[in-house]
């Protein structure tokens, strides 16, 4: 199945989005078929209230999201709290019912009668959760938590346990030491490694990481990120990496999707988005990153205000309330992502980039950064010192 990889220093992981993993027997649709296609996905949560417990409003948690996940890539999803990225993760995993839209896994639709069987989908797609406290059953030794999935799918007790121990080794935990331990004995980073092992136990092809490193301390975060990169190659995985941390997303992703209030505002290859962000929201997000240089202090916030409440999102473009380029057009007409864009294209849902929309700044949008993007951190200098 999985061939043992040669060494860690194989340089050639070209960050190209057209990369297709070499022959995987589980592959059905062929290299050109996206691993996951999401079409016009919607999730509306009713807000109940009043004496009769009627639906008085709807939270548009995810509202018409479409994108593709190419085989073998890491798609980063960024956005602030309330933008619907965690709901999106659960929708992708089919853990909550979708209100509307289609999910197509390797050519087969998920959650319909003649689509992919739920049992097969549950093996092929796995999820790693954020909160390391509640993500493991406190009453089970961690190896039993890992072995649970394979047991459900009919593996014998002994086999499942062996697999669990093998995976513990793969995620950097000595199996004989950590296997029989209970979660309360492990540190946050160690628990997160167990979570990863549990997802891998199903030999998935797609792993959805929902803020998987956000709760960890920085030094541990780096360890887990390195581990995730190695595992991806080792097990031939495709990642959907959801995070609010722009630096982490930049490091781990091949392509990035930016969400704002339940909608996709921009999607494209990571380097293009980080160097030349188009959407004013993406620009503000990137400018809000804190520099580690005390001489680069900001005196003016890139944008003011908080993200609005998703219960009653603003009309037209949902970002117009905070956008410095907003015009009357933006308040009334909702911009859309251009149709027919390929995964390697850098596209945005903003009137300023749509010739037919009629925004006065079309073709005249000032660049996001006056100076080129900051050099890769002071880490090199620090390392040299040490």
């Amino acid at each position, binding site marked *: 199945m999985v061939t043992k990889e040669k060494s860690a220093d194989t340089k050639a992981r070209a960050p190209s989005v057209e990369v297709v993993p070499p022959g995987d027997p589980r592959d059905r649709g062929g290299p050109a078929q996206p691993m996951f296609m999401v079409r016009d996905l919607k999730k509306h949560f009713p807000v109940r209230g009043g004496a009769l417990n009627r639906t008085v409003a709807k939270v548009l948690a995810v509202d018409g999201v479409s994108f593709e996940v190419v085989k073998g890539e890491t798609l980063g999803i960024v956005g602030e709290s309330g933008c619907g990225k965690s709901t999106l993760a659960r929708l992708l995993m089919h853990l909550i019912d979708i209100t509307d839209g289609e999910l197509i896994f390797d050519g087969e639709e998920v959650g319909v009668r003649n689509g992919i069987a739920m049992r097969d989908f549950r093996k092929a797609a796995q999820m790693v959760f954020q909160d390391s406290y509640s993500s493991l059953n406190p009453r089970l030794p961690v190896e039993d938590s890992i072995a649970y999935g394979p047991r459900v799918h009919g593996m014998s007790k002994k086999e499942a346990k062996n697999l669990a121990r093998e995976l513990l080794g793969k995620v950097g935990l000595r199996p004989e030491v950590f296997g029989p331990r209970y979660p309360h004995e492990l540190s946050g980073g160690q628990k997160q490694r167990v979570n990863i092992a549990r997802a891998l136990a199903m030999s998935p092809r797609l792993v959805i990481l929902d803020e998987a490193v956000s709760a960890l301390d920085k030094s541990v975060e780096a360890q887990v990120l390195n581990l995730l990169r190695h595992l991806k190659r080792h097990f031939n995985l495709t990642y959907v990496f959801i995070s609010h941390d722009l630096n982490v997303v930049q490091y781990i992703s091949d392509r990035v999707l930016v969400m704002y209030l339940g909608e996709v505002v921009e999607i494209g290859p990571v380097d293009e988005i980080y160097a030349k962000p188009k959407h004013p929201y993406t620009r503000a997000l990137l400018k809000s990153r804190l520099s580690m240089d005390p001489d680069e202090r900001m005196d003016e916030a890139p944008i003011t205000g908080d993200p609005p409440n998703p219960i009653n999102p603003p009309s037209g473009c949902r970002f117009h309330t905070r956008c410095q380029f907003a015009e009357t057009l933006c308040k009334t007409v909702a911009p859309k992502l251009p149709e027919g864009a390929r995964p390697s294209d850098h596209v945005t849902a903003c009137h300023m980039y749509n010739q037919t929309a009629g925004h006065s700044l079309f073709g005249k949008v000032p660049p996001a950064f006056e100076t080129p993007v900051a050099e890769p951190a002071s880490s090199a200098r620090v390392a040299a*010192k040490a």
Partner: protein
Amino acid sequence: MTDNAYVARVENLEVKFVSRESTTKAVNGVSFTLKEGEVLSIIGESGSGKSVSMRALMRLLPSKAKIGGEVEVNGKDVLKMSGRELTRMRGKEVSMIFQEPMTALDPVYTVGDQIAETVMRHEGVSKEEGLKRALELLEFVRVPSAERRLKAYPFELSGGLRQRAMIAMALSCRPSLLLADEPTTALDATVQIQVLILLRKLQKEMGMGVIFVTHDLGVAAQIADKVAVMYAGRIVEMGPVRDLLRNPLHPYTQGMLASTVHGQDRNTDIEAIPGSPPDMRNEIRGCAFAPRCKHATELCRTTEPPETSPGEGRAVRCHLVSGMTGAEQDAPAYA
């Protein structure tokens, strides 16, 4: 101010949490000083004792905590204060802002009432006067349409506005010392920078001392004058923010900087610090960082490194540094 110019002075602080099963030495000999109008950022990972050290300044610790050492605020010994003196000090001379304002604000009162109540309690003014001050304060922390927000309940505000309301409440009595416990960690990136800039401006305007606890080096770089790095209950390195972040001396600080994801090359591993922090329930011998340090020697594993001062206003606890600068130097604290 009194004869000594320090807003806060902590000398050899020790905090132990004692329970039936174990004793956790959360803070182990921490010393620092804070001058008027100075911003000290305490950086550390979870469990490093940074929050506990700060809370000791207000004696806001559970009863099972045993505090030792000296803690002075405005020249007064906090550890010897009576309950009444403590209450008077809290909120008036020293106030605190938290990571999650929802837990610090009372959900059943309006924001205006809560701020007014604090002003009334400490300054003995009328309710009317208190509400007037509350409005001023909300405008002071740049809450848009402050008049309307005065009558809002905490749950009706967004995260950023709640944090501003809490800052307004904390500043209502013009404290000389503000303790901030990761106040921007739970905020979104675009809101975090707004609150940081606001805090910096308010601090300058009011000239108060601030102790800002965070795990994020970027936040410290934005706000701090000096930085103390904590590891396993000790300050391992302290110095002016520029020197410390540009030229870190302790291997832990260096490791923290290197492992913070910050535009590294995507095709190489990040330089992570291996292993995890020690369990504070166990006795630690030698340098607490030695098991994770790539430079560790036999000396590090057996003897705790003394504090040395390798430069103006700097202090490090590392055998490597003391070896380089000469251990005999053994300078006292930083002026």
